[in-house]
């Protein structure tokens, strides 16, 4: 049984206001761009495997008073499973990790990932790495309930959503690249935190 990633995103988006989001590559980029338009500036669209939850953790370390959401993927998490052990030991109190597990590398046409075998269980790996709150969901109701719990948790919380691999049709493509996305995100963090991250040079 699997669920629509886009429908999950709509549910998650409804729960977000001042959180910060870092997300992985692939179809999830455009889907998140459309499913949660109010979170565009608060979301860093990262086009890379193995970086997303680690970057989200770094952000959570730097802003311990702010809730950070990592939207990772099966392919992305499998690229660096070590981050689960780091999260298990470091125990961030403000990091909610969602893993979109569609059992495929969707952005390149759908070759299967290791989770497609049915034997590789990312939530079980996470629990084994010390993340006690690691769950797999395959209904929208369960996903929504875990979003509520994960966004309020004071310990690392991970939910693996078994999604159907169907790209939401008719959605608007994001036009910006990684550099523009970084500037938008950094300026949003600066504005909402009242800080300077990328300030002026000595001389103009």
């Amino acid at each position: 049984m699997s669920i629509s990633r886009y429908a999950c995103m709509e549910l998650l988006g409804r729960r977000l206001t001042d959180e910060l989001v870092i997300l992985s590559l692939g179809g999830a980029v455009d889907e998140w761009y459309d499913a949660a338009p109010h979170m565009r500036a608060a979301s860093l669209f990262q086009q890379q495997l193995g970086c997303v939850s680690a970057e989200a953790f770094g952000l959570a370390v730097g802003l311990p008073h702010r809730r950070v959401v990592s939207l990772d993927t099966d392919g992305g998490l499998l690229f660096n499973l070590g981050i689960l052990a780091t999260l298990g030991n470091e125990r961030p109190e403000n990091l909610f990790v969602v893993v979109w597990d569609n059992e495929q590398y969707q952005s390149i046409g759908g070759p299967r990932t290791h989770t497609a075998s049915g034997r590789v269980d990312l939530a079980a790996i996470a629990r084994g790495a010390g993340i006690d709150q690691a769950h797999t969901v395959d209904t929208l109701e369960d996903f929504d309930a875990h979003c509520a719990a994960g966004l309020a948790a004071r310990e690392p919380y991970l939910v693996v959503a078994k999604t159907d691999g169907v790209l939401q049709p008719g959605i608007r493509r994001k036009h910006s690249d990684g550099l523009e996305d970084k500037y938008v995100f950094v300026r949003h963090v600066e504005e909402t935190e009242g800080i300077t991250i990328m300030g002026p040079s000595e001389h103009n």
Partner: protein
Amino acid sequence: MQQEAVDAVLSGLKKAGVSVACYLPDSLLEELYPALDADPDIRTIQVTNEGEGAAICGGVFLSGKRAVLVMENSGLRASVEHLARMGLGAGIPVIMIMSHRGDLGENNWWAVPHGITMEPVLKALRVPYRIVRSADEVERAVTDAFTWSYTAYYHSAVVLSGETVR
């Protein structure tokens, strides 16, 4: 590692405003890691590989805090994918301090590749670096690396070499 060099690294990090250090321990910088752990102004995060450490440092940059990645120079090879994606793809900088394994004087066969590959990999990534062989140059190298990376929004590296680590 010389105690003088350990002190100079810590001093440079403080002058640069660093509050987070990610590391994967190595032998040449053996004395630096407990010193970082013991420093009340720096949160240390031990990682499972240097690419993960680079990504965590990138996330810390986005928060407005400052982080450093400390590692053996072999870790550079493990972090190339993450550094290329974050640095070239998004302009998210990572400042690295690495030990110079495989330099002339190396007496471990397994470390020779680290010396052979380090500078070509740094150059391939277009990462400016300074190889420091004297403790009295360490602090300035660390602060210069942070100044450059927070101007260029790109990675930089300080390589601790020579008598600083042997």
